[in-house]
């Protein structure tokens, strides 16, 4: 036996609890952490979020902390959104670009206090963050291992928290932050998530992770709480139209081949770009793109039939115009959805396209040319996601 060293696969602060529940023992490596792909059944986990409460351990998420007098100005130069508009105790989703206006990653910025922010990202980017810090008075710390985090998502999630004694949590607005005492420590709750449903994310000192999990599952027992894995989450995010870095786009700095990276406009994220603020990374290139037009469009497709259009080529007539990056049958919306990157001119809502889908049944491969239509956005977008006070279920 090799003695354990810190480079071996890491365990999250909730690991003992995840391990106990992970009946089918299906794990994956999430940025170095052992993370459950599924606990019991992907379908049941999926419906736990749409009907009750699902709990996903997001502790492996890369987290950076920014403090110091220039923290806000620093982030405003780093990302495309106008950070000055994010009040204390608010959260914003954003992307950040390189100088060529190509998306490096997406993530959420938490305004924790004055001159104090947290950034949650898909990929490690400390190197870029440090280069970006030249000329700013800001301190940057990788706090990935210092903060335990859970996504608690689904229509009964608010009720579960109320049962845990988090009074007033129903008044927390989407993208808001609230804090509650927990066994002498503090738990931070944000109304955020990756499922498109009513839901929260909690942030806590790792030493309180296990007790929190225990209290959460005790409180949620009567409301159908269950742990969910990444496979279910993937269905949830697809249904609600959320992009995944590394799948729906290649982080710009990791792209080896010329032209494989994408701008925010090309990912349908132009709304995240604010030109009414001081200089930010990619500004010049994005301004130019805005004037001269984009190369690609990112589209949501409603795909005919029930065969997921995974990795399908997209055609307009006989012309190949793009490829699918994400595809899934959406169990709640009862829709066959795909995300695709297509040549810019085919990106308008209502555009009719064709997906070339290959599927296999008992070793027999079948090719389907499925009609698809470019649609506005998420096929699952319930009012409860936005309602404040949050409904009970």
């Amino acid at each position, binding site marked *: 036996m090799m003695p354990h060293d810190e480079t071996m696969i890491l365990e999250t602060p909730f690991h003992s609890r995840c391990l106990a529940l992970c009946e089918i023992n299906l794990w994956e490596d999430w940025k170095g952490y052992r993370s459950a792909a599924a606990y019991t059944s992907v379908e049941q986990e999926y419906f736990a979020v749409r009907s009750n409460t699902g709990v996903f351990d997001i502790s492996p998420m890369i987290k950076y902390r920014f403090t110091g007098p220039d923290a806000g100005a620093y982030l405003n130069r780093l990302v495309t959104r106008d950070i000055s508009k994010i009040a204390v105790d608010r959260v914003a989703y954003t992307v950040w670009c390189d100088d060529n206006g190509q998306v490096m990653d997406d993530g959420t910025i938490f305004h924790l206090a004055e001159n104090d922010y947290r950034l949650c990202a898909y990929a490690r980017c400390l190197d870029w963050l440090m280069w970006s810090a*030249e000329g700013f008075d800001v301190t940057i710390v990788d706090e990935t291992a210092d903060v335990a985090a859970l996504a608690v998502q689904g229509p009964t999630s608010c009720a579960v928290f109320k049962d845990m004694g988090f009074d007033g949590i129903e008044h927390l607005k989407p993208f808001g932050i609230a804090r509650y005492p927990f066994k002498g420590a503090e738990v931070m709750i944000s109304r955020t998530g990756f499922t498109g449903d009513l839901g929260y994310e909690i942030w806590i000192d790792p030493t309180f992770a296990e007790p929190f999990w225990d209290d959460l599952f005790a409180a949620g027992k009567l409301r159908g709480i269950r742990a969910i894995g990444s496979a279910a989450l993937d269905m949830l995010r697809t249904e609600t139209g959320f992009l995944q870095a590394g799948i729906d786009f290649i982080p710009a700095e990791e792209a080896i081949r010329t032209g494989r990276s994408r701008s925010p406009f090309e990912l349908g994220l132009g709304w995240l770009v604010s030109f009414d603020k*001081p200089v930010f990374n990619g500004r010049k290139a994005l301004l130019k793109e805005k004037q001269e037009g984009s190369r690609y469009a990112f589209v949501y497709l409603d795909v005919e039939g029930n065969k997921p259009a995974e990795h399908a080529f997209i055609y307009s007539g006989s012309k190949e115009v793009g490829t699918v990056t994400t595809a899934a049958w959406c169990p709640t919306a009862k829709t066959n959805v795909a995300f695709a990157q297509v040549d810019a001119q085919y990106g308008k809502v209502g555009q009719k396209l064709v997906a070339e889908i290959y599927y296999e049944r008992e070793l027999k491969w079948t090719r389907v040319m499925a009609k698809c239509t470019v649609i506005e956005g998420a096929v699952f977008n319930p009012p409860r996601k936005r309602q404040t006070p949050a409904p009970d279920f």
Partner: protein
Amino acid sequence: MINVDKHYDVIVVGGGHNGLVCATYLAKDGRNVLVLEANDALGGASATAEFSDQFSVSSCAHWLFQLNPKVASELDLTKHGLALAAENLCTIALAEDGNHLTIDGDKLEGENISEEDRKAFVAFNHQISKFCKVLAAAFNRRAPKLVEGNFTDRITLAKLGFGMKMLGKEDMSDLMRLALINIYDVMEENFENDLLKGAISLDSLLGSHMGPRSPNTVYGYIYRRMGAIFGFQGPAVVQGGMGAVGKAMAAAAAASGVDIEVDAAVSKINIDVDRATGVTLRDGRVVNASLVVSNADPKTTFNNLVGLSNIETGVARRVKTMRMKGDTAKLHIALDGLPNFTGLTEQQMGQRLVIAPTMNYVENAFNPSKYGEYSTEPAMDISIPSIHDTNLAPSGKHVMSVIVQYAPYDLTGGWTEENKGAFTELVIDRLADFAPDLKDKIVASELLTPVDIEQRFHIHGGHWHHGEISLDQILMMRPFPGASQYGTAVGGLYLCGAGNHPGGGVMGLAGHNAAKEIIKRGTSA
């Protein structure tokens, strides 16, 4: 003088020679131009300073050997007071035993020079001149873009390509090979004489952080020899010291209508989102302009004047990683009489003297600087300008100016007074090996380390070329990719200093080229 109420077409930050050249061309094109200089004299690194009572010396560059003739004549510098006290000087490679070698154009004089070396030297110079002529096609124009290049760039490329083709197959092949290799090998391939090899190797790397064995150093030699294309068969001593070049340029600028203010340090280049709007002076005054042209080096420009927070991260990273680590010191010595260099007449002492007895000597001098230490046996380039220009010192007395290679900017332990004293003593000891009575004649001395050069001339790292001249930092890579045509990522902000193509050496071409580019793009660009 500044008129704060005036909206200038162009503000040039820094009255160095390139800044003045750029300003003059812009003024001649009809722009209202203001030059702001932090120091009390103009010329930047072309400076003369009194370092001891009544002893003056060129305090940074001490030879004039690359000034572009087109610039000199278009600015009418002679009319504006530029005069040479001596020109076409020889280079004398000093030998400890007094058997020195004199390089006079293509001619070699001295003992133990083989006929082969004499012939090879003529052939070598001839070939280098041919290379210089090819490169000259690109020197007085902006560096061409290779992929996105427009018509202007393609013309330059065509000129370069045509020049290469005209070299013929052999020379063209040689150029491709030689430009990439080190001067050490080329010297070994061509010559036997150690003094010759040592002296040429020193020429190829003066001012840089490289040794004779460092690949790329042949380019350094070709670069230096551009002076010959510009009409300098050898270095010249300027009457009044190099500061007179700055003065003449300032006079030319003023005559063209440029407003100039000295003692006017710029603390900030003002930027509105992504466009330069003017400058703020250290005294708080704000001057607005359509364009700002920085004659400061790229690092000083972006680090200190623009602020890295005001540009995008990728450019900031380029600025930070650009290499400009000064490794050269200047020693100024006031003498109460002319010292006796063993084996040299007074006339010979007025030439350019170098201490680089062998290539290994120079390489060994380089080694410590890689580890943050100064050379214990440094290589040197020595000038005694007072032989030609008696105004620099009281009658019968002299000044000696020594370029000392290598003295790293980031000396371990820092350039404390103690370290400076030790280094000064070491350099003087070494000089005394060649001029035994030197120490008795010293009245005063002044050592300028790269740190001093940084402070006095506002050059980051004290690197007098405003950035290492090596193959990875020339042409479209100078100062760094994406900023190679004088324009920058900030709208309305241009660079015109030696950190840009084609580089330093008091050529005036960076300033000339920047002005042409600005004129071409118009004020709104």
